[in-house]
């Protein structure tokens, strides 16, 4: 019933094949598609946002260099995900070698998914800005009309596909597409002043 992963994988296969034939632009498209996921993943290991972005960048470059060995046995994202995790771990190892007093080592990094606060190296300013943003998002969600709030919650919390949400809410799938988009847009609108003029990053 849920064909989301297949849709995404088909596109990835096409883009990877293009890169393997020498089309560098296709790799840009893969970067655009997955940059937020990889940055969020690396950020679980390395809490400093700017360091996390550097490591994520390194992971993408490594992936590009290794793409000739990618044979499609696993999905592209699964393969990229492994590269990103290894790059983050190597970065932490190198950093702990440089600074022997560094409190967090690679063993801690292994546990980081279960204990996100373990490497919380954010600056107080960043922490405050993050809290302010989360509060704004929660407030924006509370102001949404019921049907939009339900649609976005079913998507984000329950991970339901649009088809499943349409069934649950007894409405056409097109309505679900529109409700989720409008919910995101409403939240983004409330967030925009903070991102433009606030202290975030």
């Amino acid at each position, binding site marked *: 019933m849920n064909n*989301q992963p297949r849709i995404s994988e088909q596109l990835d296969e096409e883009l990877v094949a293009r890169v393997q034939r020498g089309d560098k632009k296709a790799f840009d498209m893969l970067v655009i598609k997955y940059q937020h996921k990889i940055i969020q993943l690396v950020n679980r290991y390395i809490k400093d946002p700017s360091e996390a972005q550097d490591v994520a960048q390194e992971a993408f470059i490594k992936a590009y260099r290794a793409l000739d060995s990618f044979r499609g046995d696993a999905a592209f994202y699964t393969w990229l995900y492994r590269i990103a995790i290894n790059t983050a771990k190597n970065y932490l190892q190198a950093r702990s070698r440089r600074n022997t007093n560094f409190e967090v080592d690679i063993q801690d990094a292994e546990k980081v998914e279960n204990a996100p606060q373990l490497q919380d190296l954010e600056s107080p300013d960043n922490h405050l800005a993050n809290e302010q943003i989360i509060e704004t998002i929660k407030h924006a969600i509370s102001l949404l009309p019921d049907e939009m709030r339900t649609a976005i919650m079913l998507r984000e919390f329950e991970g339901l*596909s649009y088809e499943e949400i349409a069934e649950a809410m007894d409405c056409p799938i097109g309505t679900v597409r529109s409700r989720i988009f409008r919910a995101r847009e409403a939240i983004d609108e409330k967030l925009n002043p903070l991102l433009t003029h606030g202290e975030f990053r």
Partner: protein
Amino acid sequence: MNNELKQQVSELLDNELASPAAFDLLQKARHNPEITSTLNRYAAISQAIKSDAFILADNDFSARIARQIEQEPLYLLPQRKQPSLRRYQWPAMAASLAAVLVLAAHGLDKINTPETNASLQLAQKATPEPTKQAAANSEQTEQPLNARIYDYLQAHNNSVYTSGESDFKPLVKVTSYANRR
């Protein structure tokens, strides 16, 4: 950036955008930073709802990688060929033809054996004539029950029914029937 494009971005984030449309959108995003920035903001909102952590990618993140990739050597892997069916066309046809010839020759040999001919003749003798069948039908009310069943079975079954003959050969299906007439 119009709402239609923004809605597509939202669908791409959820893996709900069909491949051709997603491909077009990503192509546009390469030249339109606003699309990438919208995708990153929606993704950050989505992550924040789920995990209370707002992580926003830099707007020039993909552009930085693109610049670095430009310095990398080009991939020129040999194109993977689809297995060509034409390569196997003639051997397949030859094999099929040979198989048909062998089966046909084998079949003819069997049909022409004296045993088979005898069996077929016997089977033909045992099969009632259509006229006999019609006559039997017209008299069926006067016949005993066994005889009616016998006629019915003969009319509705390809088997040959005999009254105890036992020298039938293979290739003829034989069902013994105790005729008490």
